[in-house]
């Protein structure tokens, strides 16, 4: 009797365990299939998009109508962005697939810049057509290789995941598919040239040399001295200064740490450029108390700080209040022209008005003595060009950077469409509408989008 009782319990338990394993592996299996399906979708979409790109590039080379060209170029842009998205969803692990990403990004960006050119009434040069033909060559090659992979996939020879989660088989087999992609990517890197054109993904944008850094090299002890002098320190704390390391960005710098006497962690962190000893950024990490000063007083505090540190003649252009501090953007004014690329951001603590943050990277990268272009359009001409529904509040001159880091002298037209505020930028040389920003006013500050 007792024996049978144990047997029954044993069988029930064994049954329960088998059921448990079965249901878990079943769930793992269906999850795995769902994952596989999304990978496969990404892959087949990528093939489609590359095929479309091929076709569209060929058409753009053949057509003689500007309207058709604009349509084709913008569709190429669209498809190339889609290809980037598909590619980024594939499980390629730690493999470096960045060259294919870049290829699609530049192809799309370049086509977009060409369509913009045609819209503005400019001609596409023979050099640019040559670049397009190059793109065609590479995308044809890519398309061919992807189709070879597609054949293997359709034959079921390759799967993205190799049953990594199935019970009892924990080791992952090599991912043949991902390896094949890596080969394609490497080939693109070797063959595709760097190209320069008018767009944000052009190769020249990444290699900006700082123009506002002048002077001779400084020593570490000089950097510490500069840091202690520069930081806003109304309570006259005694700081220990130390060098935390070097930063090797576009502006090589010493990273300086300022620690209050007796404290264990540094309170202020600052980068001081090796050349010229300019402060690139600093941040005071102290806790911020409840708000005691108003916004106007904080703007005055920020302006006074800037002029005491050698940045006079700056205009506040925007602000953002968050968590007890206000971050104010300042730009220099030269002959009544706002120089937007040379902006500086200052963060003021609203508890006592201390400057707790400074970011001068924009200023140091772009500020220099420029020769500005001649103004060929008058203010009244600008008024005529503006959309008639826009009620104009103010017009002033401003230098703005475009997405390709090219600077353009424009009229900044501040206007309202009903209760929405916009900034419209009209090129002061040729009257083209360069940029439209929508201004969003929140209780936290003024933001442009």
């Amino acid at each position: 009797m007792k024996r049978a009782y144990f047997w029954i319990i044993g069988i029930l338990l064994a049954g329960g365990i088998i059921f448990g394993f079965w249901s878990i592996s079943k769930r793992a299996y269906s999850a795995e299939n769902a994952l596989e399906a999304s990978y496969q979708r990404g892959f087949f979409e990528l093939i489609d998009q590359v095929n479309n790109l091929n076709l569209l590039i060929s058409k753009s080379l053949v057509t003689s109508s500007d309207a058709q060209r604009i349509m084709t170029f913008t569709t190429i842009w669209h498809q190339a962005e889609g290809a980037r998205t598909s590619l980024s969803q594939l499980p390629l692990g730690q493999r470096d697939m960045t060259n294919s990403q870049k290829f699609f990004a530049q192809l799309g960006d370049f086509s977009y810049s060409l369509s913009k050119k045609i819209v503005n009434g400019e001609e596409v040069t023979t050099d640019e057509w040559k670049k397009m033909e190059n793109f065609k060559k590479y995308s044809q090659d890519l398309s061919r290789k992807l189709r070879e992979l597609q054949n293997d996939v359709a034959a079921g020879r390759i799967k993205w995941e190799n049953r990594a989660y199935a019970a009892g088989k924990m080791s992952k087999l090599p991912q043949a598919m991902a390896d094949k992609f890596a080969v394609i990517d490497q080939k693109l890197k070797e063959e595709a040239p760097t190209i320069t054109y008018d767009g944000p993904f052009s190769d020249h944008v990444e290699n900006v040399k700082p123009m506002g850094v002048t002077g001779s090299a400084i020593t570490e002890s000089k950097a510490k001295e500069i840091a202690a002098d520069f930081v806003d320190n109304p309570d006259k704390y005694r700081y220990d200064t130390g060098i935390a390391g070097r930063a090797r960005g576009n502006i090589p710098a010493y990273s300086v740490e300022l620690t209050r006497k007796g404290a264990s962690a540094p309170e202020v962190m600052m980068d001081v450029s090796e050349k010229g000893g300019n402060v690139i950024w600093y941040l005071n990490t102290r806790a911020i108390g409840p708000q005691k000063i108003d916004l106007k007083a904080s703007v005055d505090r920020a302006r006074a700080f800037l002029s005491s540190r050698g940045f006079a003649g700056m205009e506040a252009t925007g602000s953002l209040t968050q968590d007890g501090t206000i971050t104010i953007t300042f730009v220099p004014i030269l002959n009544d022209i706002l120089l937007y690329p040379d902006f500086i951001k200052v963060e003021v603590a609203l508890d006592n008005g201390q400057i707790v943050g400074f970011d001068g990277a924009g200023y140091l990268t772009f500020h220099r003595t420029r020769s500005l272009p001649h103004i060929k359009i008058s203010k009244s001409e600008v008024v005529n060009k503006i959309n008639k529904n826009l009620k104009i509040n103010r017009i002033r001159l401003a230098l703005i950077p475009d997405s390709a880091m090219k600077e353009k002298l424009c009229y900044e037209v501040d206007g309202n469409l009903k209760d929405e505020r916009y900034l419209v930028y009209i090129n002061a040389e040729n009257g083209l509408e360069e940029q439209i920003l929508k201004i969003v006013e929140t209780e936290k500050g003024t933001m442009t989008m």
Partner: protein
Amino acid sequence: MRARRSISILLVVLIPLSIFLFCSRNIARRTLQARTEDYAVSSWNGDYMLLARLVSGEARGEPFPGQVGVAAVILNRAKHPKFPPTVAGVIFQPGAFESVSNGQIWASYPSRSNFNAAREALNGWDPTYGSLYFWNPYKWVSPWVWTRRVMTQIGRHVFGK
């Protein structure tokens, strides 16, 4: 006698095992619930939230500028031709971040300093000078990352391009 002993051994092994199996399903469900609540509170700004979550997953315990650096790397990638064009695309690129692969990104709610770091990066502050990668030199990393140009080190992370 012998059969009895083997059965009791079987019971000792099997009962905890089945309890464990049963509970593991419940644990999975509970974490899922915690996640939906997090979203309900803070779905007001996707980028901000996602950035803060990644910072919390990747840079927990790092000095504040190091946390801003991690968020800045995400934003630099989203602007760079070699990476997907959106913040979500960058963060969820398969295999790109360890904290996404192992679920750390969902493990706990970001701290105040994680949110502040995300905000500073969105405001345009980049202590990493345009870096596209970061890694912890004290852990094993793919040798490939050391071929990157090192920009700076903040806390335990090296930032490079």
